[in-house]
């Protein structure tokens, strides 16, 4: 291979060249420093607004998801008279955990009842908390919800690229081996090009030496600038005691060309994406512990199994009609309404709002998302493959990831998340029966782990676009709608305020719902205070 720097203009000054090379890292470092000072771009609000003096004003909250629960908790503490209407028989919204006895009937689908063993579960909704989601972590701390680390990156796990080319295509490869070999190979190519004079015009001798030192360090290169593998990619014979195995036997790297052709390098990047931090958390026992934490505080304010039918408003207040648990229609009046119902559902409801507001509600699309949990007889990924948590990346778009549980280490059984697909693929998979979905997941699993399908004891799947009261995984704003519609919905329409992950730039994350609620109740409180706060 030849030097890959044809793109750098010959006349580029040394300083400009270094600056342009350094630009990304430089700004990332700067941002990292800013975050450390609390000025960064991560979930921006670390704590709830300090509100007081609600004076018994009546607030009706529609939806007991994470946003609605947040608002109910903070507003009731501030002295407001809060009622929450929740369509389901339990709180949490999408913050759900399927364990033994949990039932789900997708629209037009058959009823599934989760039959996992006691102690096993699948978080078919939100399942991870990045360490920088301060708002979610605020409540896990406040409610004393124990957390455990969610392994979001595991070098020992497999990458499975069936659509690649060459001898490595369609073989499960250890992610760390892919990373070592593609980066080692790339560093070698670049280092040798530098040595051959590729950058003599654009870099001083001193800078070239530093750059070479960096490449040697980055790629684990030998002193002759060749990459011959490194211990981090593992051993053919593990080192141990005595003379044998003694030092063990080093592994042999894959050929650079083969790794390139495999496409598996698409899973390897310099740093994890902001939302895909390598360190994440999950509540011990299931994500719904967060919902239960809120419920312990504000469960008495929630009317369950109560489906909102209409919303009317005037300059005096709001009026909600609903169908209660007994099927009877009821009416509820309040001073203000905070509605956290997903826009995918709200757009089809009979609500009184201005024309532009309604048009804005219709301007967002919702993600189609599917997941399946598979209870395995035996933790073969740990016992046979030494993989403890993390994801198997699979380039079949109906699978995408298989995720190994970050709980119950070395236990007897475990629940693998067998697929996590989106969009049109999620539409397609959701057309399958639960048994067919399990069959799809098991066929894919057998390509990575021999005996995968034989270990499956039961499964539970969810297709969020087919789940009543949600009709989608999360809001997906187009750039255009972010400009035209989103700001409209962030402001109240008369006495109607909206909140939820859909009104954040953390769409699909619980932190988005919480921070949206914080923002909206702050506005609502300020307005009521300005009115004199009188009941």
């Amino acid at each position, binding site marked *: 291979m030849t030097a890959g720097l044809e793109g750098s203009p010959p006349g580029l000054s040394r300083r400009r060249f270094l600056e342009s090379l350094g630009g990304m890292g430089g700004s990332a470092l700067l941002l990292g420093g800013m975050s450390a000072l609390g000025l960064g771009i991560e979930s921006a609000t670390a704590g709830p607004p300090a509100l007081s003096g609600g004076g018994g004003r009546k607030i009706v909250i529609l939806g007991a998801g994470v946003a609605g629960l947040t608002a109910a908790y903070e507003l009731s503490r501030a002295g407001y008279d809060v009622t929450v209407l929740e369509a389901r028989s339990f709180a949490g919204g999408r913050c759900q955990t399927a364990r033994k006895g949990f039932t789900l009937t997708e629209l037009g689908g058959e009823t599934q009842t989760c039959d996992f063993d006691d102690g096993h579960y699948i978080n078919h909704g939100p399942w991870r908390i990045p360490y920088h989601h301060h708002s979610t972590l605020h409540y896990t701390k406040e409610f004393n919800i124990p957390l455990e680390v969610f392994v979001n990156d595991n070098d020992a796990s497999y990458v499975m690229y069936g659509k690649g080319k060459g001898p490595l295509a369609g073989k499960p490869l250890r992610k760390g081996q892919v990373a070592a070999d593609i980066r080692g190979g790339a560093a070698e190519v670049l280092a040798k090009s530098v040595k051959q004079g590729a950058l003599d015009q654009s870099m001083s001798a001193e800078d070239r030496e530093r750059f070479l030192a960096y490449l040697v360090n980055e790629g684990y290169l030998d002193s002759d600038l060749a990459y011959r593998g490194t211990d981090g990619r593992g051993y053919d014979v593990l080192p141990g005691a005595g003379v044998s195995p003694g030092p063990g036997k080093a592994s042999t790297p894959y050929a650079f060309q083969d790794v390139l052709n495999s496409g598996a390098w*698409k899973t390897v990047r310099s740093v994890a994406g902001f939302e895909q931090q390598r360190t994440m958390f999950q509540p011990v026992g299931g994500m719904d512990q967060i919902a239960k934490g809120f419920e312990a505080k504000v469960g008495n304010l929630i009317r369950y199994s109560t489906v909102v039918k209409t919303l009317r408003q005037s300059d005096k207040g709001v009026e909600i009609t609903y169908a209660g648990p007994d099927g009877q229609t009821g009416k509820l009046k309040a001073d203000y309404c905070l509605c956290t119902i997903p826009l*995918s559902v709200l*757009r089809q409801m009979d609500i009184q709002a201005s024309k532009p507001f309604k048009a804005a509600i219709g301007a967002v699309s919702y993600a189609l998302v599917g997941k399946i949990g598979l209870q395995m007889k035996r933790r073969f990924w740990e016992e046979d493959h030494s993989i403890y948590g993390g994801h198997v990346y699979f380039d079949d*778009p109906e699978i995408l990831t298989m995720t190994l549980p970050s709980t119950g280490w070395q236990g007897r059984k475990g629940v693998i998340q067998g697929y996590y697909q*989106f*969009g049109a693929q999620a539409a397609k998979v959701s057309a399958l029966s639960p048994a067919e979905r399990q069959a799809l997941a098991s066929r894919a699993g057998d390509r990575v782990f021999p005996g995968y399908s034989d270990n499956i004891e039961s499964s539970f799947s969810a297709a969020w676009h087919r789940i009543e009261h949600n009709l989608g995984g*999360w809001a*997906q704003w*187009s*750039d255009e709608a972010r400009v035209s519609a989103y700001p409209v919905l962030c402001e109240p329409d008369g006495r109607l305020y909206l909140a939820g992950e859909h009104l954040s730039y953390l769409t699909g994350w619980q932190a988005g719902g919480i921070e949206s609620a914080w923002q909206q109740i702050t506005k609502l409180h300020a307005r009521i205070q300005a009115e004199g706060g009188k009941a």
Partner: protein
Amino acid sequence: MIRTSWIASSALLLALTAGGAQAADGRTLYVENCAACHRPNGVGVPGAFPTLVGSKVVTGDPKATSRIVLEGRGGMPAFQGEMDDDEVAAALTYVRGSWGNKAKPVQTADVGAVRGKARREDARASLQAH
């Protein structure tokens, strides 16, 4: 977030039976891609997924209908990365001629005429989302 172009055309794997009528292919495409929400008989789910039976959106201008399939709308995903022009035309022709619908077939050229003008953001096609 990692964005990859993994939207591979698995719909292409559908075997098109040699000499088979377009209606039959269209039915298979419909069942695999559309029926989860719009139901096998096209009636949808009230309050969630619109019916395709007697729908003016379905039976109207072939180009406008094709655009919805390509770009998605509301909770409906974009199929432009999943189905080629022939397949979109076949699926729509099936829908426009089934369950009492009596609209003329959609031509491959109708779909081609609106493909590439797609505006809506793609579904988040990443290694993982949340």
